[in-house]
């Protein structure tokens, strides 16, 4: 299950998505608590998908490559995707090392060694797939080490910040 926040025309919506493993192309969602089933007919070619059936309603759409603009018959919408798995605060269970959840580019670093941080406080911004992902503190503590700087690219799992 993936938790996302999707903002459409400045209106945030909380989303939970679960792919149906038994039936590829089918997804179960909760949008602001409202259950929906989405079916993707062209499941095998993710890049070419240009229509989906939401419940029993077919939609043809055009999505910009960075997922910032969506066009359907009723108009053009500004959208934003925030992935909580990537940027969100998670319970402090690890050893305090914040690793890159996706490969990407560090665009901003908000903290420096010695600084105290709270749970969920933004540490840095990791840009990937043309989206800015705010990486937040997994727990309360003191920043012990910052291993990255703006402009640097990171690979998957690379240690970025250590919190004690």
């Amino acid at each position, binding site marked *: 299950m*993936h938790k*996302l926040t*999707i903002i*459409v*025309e400045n*209106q945030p*919506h909380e*989303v939970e*998505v679960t*792919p149906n493993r038994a039936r*590829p192309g089918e*997804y179960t*969602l909760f*949008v*602001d608590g*409202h259950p*929906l089933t*989405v079916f*993707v007919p062209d*499941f095998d070619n*993710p*890049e070419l*998908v*240009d229509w*989906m059936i*939401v*419940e029993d*309603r077919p*939609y*043809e*759409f*055009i*999505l910009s490559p960075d*997922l910032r603009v*969506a066009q*359907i*018959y*009723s*108009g*053009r*919408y500004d*959208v934003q*995707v925030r*992935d909580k798995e990537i940027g969100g605060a998670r319970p402090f269970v690890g050893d305090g090392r914040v690793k890159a959840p996706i490969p990407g580019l560090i665009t901003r670093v908000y903290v420096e060694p010695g600084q105290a941080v709270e749970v969920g406080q933004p540490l840095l911004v990791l840009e990937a*797939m043309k989206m800015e992902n705010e990486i937040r503190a997994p727990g309360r503590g003191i920043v012990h080490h910052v291993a990255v700087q703006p402009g640097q690219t990171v690979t998957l799992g690379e240690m970025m910040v250590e919190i004690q």
Partner: protein
Amino acid sequence: MFKKILIANRGEIATRIIRTCREMGIWSVALYTPTDRDSLHVRLADEAHMIHTPNRYGDADEVLAIAKAVGAEAIHPGYGFLAEEADFAERCAAEGIVFIGPPPAVIRTLRNKMLTMEMVKRAGYRVPVYAELPDAYADEATLQQTAAQVGYPLVVKSARGGRGRGARVVMHPDKLADAVRSARREAQLIYGDDHLYLERAIAPSHYLTVQILADVHGNIVHLGEREGSLLRHNQKLIEESPSPALTDAQREELWTAAIDIARLFNFQNTGAVEFLMDTAGHFHFTEIKARIQIEHGVSEMVSGVDIVREQIRIAAGEPLLRTQEQIRLQGWAMHCRINAEDPWNDYLPSPGRLTRFRLPQGPDVRVDTYGYAGCAIPERFDPLLANLIVKGDDRAMCLSRMRRALMEFRIVGVQTNAPLHKQLIQHPIFVAGTYDTNFMARFRFDVSANTNAETCRDLVAIVAVAYLMRRRLDRPVIPPRFQSGWHRSARRLPARWT
């Protein structure tokens, strides 16, 4: 009849002409520039030749040289480029090649917009008040004096181009000098001639066009009128036939006037006799377009006449296929000009590659386009991508058909003005059929999206699933090397390879 015709044009009009050629069993020769390689007209033609010269489709020498080399008996110029070029038509004749269009002398007269109006005025028809600008670079005082004779508001027009590109509306004397300067620049650029004239603007008005066909045997018919009052930057966005603004008596009067005026000039081949109708219902003749027009499909839909076929037949000296009595104007047709331009971004051209291009289908829907899925839309030429034409029994049916055709038309890869058309044809004033040339000035494209709760929820679901799919977060992670089968075959490699 001709065996081989060269089409000295590009895009959707070249495609349109090739189609009729093929139906008539005529070998079609297409031209294309390097940037137009992807255009459908190149694929459909029996033969295609590349032109490399900087003037492209408008290069008379190059076009004639190719026509002679391939043995074309006739040249169809389409619209723009070499259409309405009397010199070119004359050169064709000298080379023994038939120019599909009016005789050179007729073209020459009609391109002189002031002479044309003078002749029509003398024959007893209303024309707008106009005055030539005496000298191409007259001083401010002379300009103002000429303008005062005409009266405000007025339109600055090219003596060769008429009310098409290059025309400027001037509401106030302060703006006159600037308008003249920019109109002159544009006229020189487009028509290679900076002669201008001033014409009293008739606003609000209706732009009415009568489609004419005339053969060399003196037969002349009309295919009804078109209403083209929905303009943006002097280009018609939507045309319809018949006009919703006319009574049947007015229609008859307009058709008769158009045929009589065309006869004044011994007009031949196809043309469009254009009028403005003022608020009192008077017609003012403005010009004759001596060529096929982009929006000819509307007249074809209501009359059942293939205008390109008639053009070719007339050029070959054959009589018209039908008399006026045999032409029955039926139903209501409408034409939307689909441009590759972005209504959300000041209508900037939107070139690119069409990744999806699904045409609307079903009864009485026609699309003339050079595009297809996978083709590149070059930024070099006009943004016109497709002519969408539909027909219904009456206007209401025609409108609902256009609405559904626009819904069905799927274009991905470039942004088009189709969303603008969707809004226009649902506007109450347009639906009522009471629009005039002022309508577009007041119309604003609604950029806001429909934020109905269910639509937004569905959109959120779509974006969420698309996000997951693009990141491959929705499927189990299989390292690429396990997907290819290579890891298994690798073990079977001969020993000497390791």
